[in-house]
């Protein structure tokens, strides 16, 4: 658990959107997925996921529904809306462009 990186501000939303783009999940599921995909290299307070989720729900990027899990527990499932899908596209594009520019500058200097 040594080399962990903190997230750039504002990028958590994008990661959540990306994870949800593969199908609906509850908060705990998103946490697991994030861990799994990042190979546990990210240093995030697990709780900070939730304000992010609520904010995005408020903006209409994702929507939520209470349903039963396989283990028969009530959980809140989040899924991407059309607006959210579009948001993900723009954010990803921006990110790609930005990181390319940053990489370019860093490597050529």
């Amino acid at each position, binding site marked *: 658990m040594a080399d962990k990186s903190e997230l750039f501000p504002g990028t958590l939303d994008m990661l959540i959107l990306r994870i949800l783009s593969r199908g609906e999940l*509850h*908060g705990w599921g998103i946490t697991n997925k994030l861990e799994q995909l990042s190979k546990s290299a990210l240093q995030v307070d*697990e*709780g*900070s996921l939730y*304000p992010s989720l609520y904010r995005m729900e*408020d903006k209409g990027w994702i929507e939520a529904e209470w349903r039963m899990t396989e283990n028969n527990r*009530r*959980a809140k499932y989040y899924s991407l809306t059309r*607006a959210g899908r579009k948001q993900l596209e723009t954010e990803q594009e921006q990110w790609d462009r930005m990181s390319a520019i940053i990489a370019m500058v860093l490597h050529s200097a």
Partner: protein
Amino acid sequence: MTLLRQLSRRLRSLFFRRQTEAEMAEEMRFHLEQRTADKLDEGFSPEEATFAAQRKFGNLASIQEQARAGRGWTWLDNLVKDLQLGVRTLFKSPGFTLTAIVTLGLGIGANTAMFSVLNGVMLKPLPFAHLPQLDRLYRSTAQNPDGNISPADFREFQLAKDGYGDVAAYTPANVSLSEPGHPAEMAYSARATANLFSLLGVQPQLGRDFRAGEDTTGRDRVVILSQRTWQKRFGGAPEVIGRTIRVDGEPHTVIGVMSAGFNDWRFLGGIDFFRPLAFAVEQANDRASTTLRVIGRRSPALTPDDADRFLAAFGARLAKEFSQANAETTWRRVTLQSAAAGPGAAMVLPMLIGLSGFVLLIACSNLANLLLARTMTRAREFAVRAALGASRTQLLRPLMAESLLLALAGGALAILVAVWFRDWAAVRSTGDNGEHVNFIVDRGVMAWAFAAALATALAFGLAPALFALRLNLNDTLKSGGRGTTGGRGHQRFRQFLIVGQFALATVLLAGAGIFMRGLDDLNKRRSGWESSQLVTGTIALPVGTYGDDEKISAFHRLAAERLAALPSVTSVSLSSSTPAFNWPEVRKFIVEGQDRPVAGREPAAAVNRVSPLYFSTYGTRVLAGRAFQERDRADSTRVFIINQAAARGLFGEKNPLGCRLGRVDGDKILWGEVVGVVNDVQPIVTDANPVPFQIYQPLAQAPRRETEIAVRAADVAPAMLVDRIRTAMTELDPDLPVSRLQPADITIYRASYQDRVLRDMLAAFALLGLALASLGIYGVIARTVAQRTSEFAIRLALGASVRDIVRLVLGSGVRMALVGSAVGLLGAIGVARLLGAAYPSLSTNNPLILGATTLLLVAVALLACWLPARRAGKVDAMGALRAE
């Protein structure tokens, strides 16, 4: 779509907070349980697993706070919380709260009441459909810019009206109204052209309008009642349509009833019923009697400027073509809306609004002082909160919430005050005819009240709050638990407020004093006549019974004889006008042997047609020659009596007795001999430019149907005679009503009822202003004394006497009051000028009142300061110093 969903979600989170909270908690609990289960699987002990899960999750409370902020309206949430807190804090200091609300409520209430007057008089549109195109048309002369129009000129305009639009005319008069089984009553009726109502765009609510052609002689015996008369006199029965009533002894058929909206007191509201206006041939050609009030409706195509030009050209044409009657006259128009409000309204109402604004300003500065003092006592609380990390907005928000609450309560109270005022004004302003002003408290008035309350409370709540923000944290916390007196700036600000209050109160008091005094003078002023022993009343002889001049004169003689024969009666007079009020009849005169001036430029004189005993009855002195006598009859030589001003103006140094004077009557000139000179008389209310020449004619030589009776009582109170006079008149003609039969002084007093409403309002403003200002100075001085207790204690300990301390406190208060009054006196002089311009007959130059006002204010200030000053002198020096 998204917006809608967002809205519903936010509302849900606002109103179903508990459920949203529960869902959030459940979701996070689920997460934590899952993580704990994971850790248990990794081999942690249960406690360790729970702890690790929590650590990984982060600060639960803080995350929940962030989550809440992420959805819903935080600000609204906060506002509700702030308001709840505000209610609690305000309830905790009921004294402050009550004072603030009452101050705000009275200040804004006065202002709102005034606004409702402005609304009712000027802003609220008259209830006519075609209002934007409606004008009053005037024929202006040098003496009278708002002159009425003669029948012949009106017919001329009817022929030319296509260049303008449409035109209607009416003329009001007193008539007798009787029905079988009812005593005759005098009613105020108007004859109107058949198109009057359709031109205004109104319909009778019952029955029908006049038909075209009903305004011709013979077909004109139909009547449309006002809603008020219908209710009062006919009990609101719908069967009234078709009923026959007698007007001036002639049977008329009721054909319609106007709606209640038509009772608008500003225009035609005082009229009891309408009849068609039919001209007999000789009337139709009459260019001398300007009796018609003319209303025009501009055709929509015509711009106001074009209408003005058209009227000017038309007036010029009349002046040229009929120069005998119309030389030197012009035509002009005023929109009906502003004509109805009256020319005085435009001057008086803004002044009253301004004065009520003064009351509000005084109330505001009191409120500011109160809030400032309150903020200062809470300075420590603010400092602690700021030290604990509250942001500026977080500090300001509860203060603003309190102000908002005060504003709401104050606004509500203000509306109560306005409603109460409306009822009071309706009672106070009821005229003799039962019509009264109607100031409706409508949405506009309510909006005004709340807007004023909000603006006031926010502005004056924010100012002290900003002071609080500038507090030095360190000093405040160190200064102990006493709150702070505030720095020099605060002191100065408060003193400024007090000085301002006193200045405004001076203006209010002096303004009200001058107006009340002036009005009182008016009611008491009897210049050239007196009325204390007189009973007066009005009669109007109907055409039906008194067909010609001979019959009219015979009745007048008989009435004078009978009344004079009553016990305790000294003398009796009949006249077309009384000296108490303006004489409406103004005629042109020329002097024999002098060059005749250009037509239209002949000297004008107010004319009164009087019976022989008029001068002795009213106490007008005959200075030279003789009074009229019984021998001045229709068939004897025509005679005139002139007043001093006319004698001097028309004849100069020459003795006017025996000279011949000609009254210009259209194309004719009626010559007569001057037989007497009497002193000038002045009515109680004079016009802006009164006609100085007064000329009397014997009533028998110029008979008139409508006359004023005056009976002088010998040795009894005039009120005792009223019933006897009425009985005597009924015996003479049971169908003849005598209206306003009462002691002359009562009639005179009643005549200025509208001015008295104004006077009472001014007085109320002044008293309110004075009360608020003294409350203000008392509050400030009392606070200062309380805060300077330790200072006084030290002074006493160092050897100051109690008197020194009292003098110190009194001195500071009186200084503020004096400075304020001095500033206010300047304003008061300005207000006096304004009043003088609006009421030319009011004497507004009254230094005595200005002086008295200043004295009163200083006395009040002394008293208000003396109470706390006495307390200051009684400071227990040892106790106060030990308490440090």
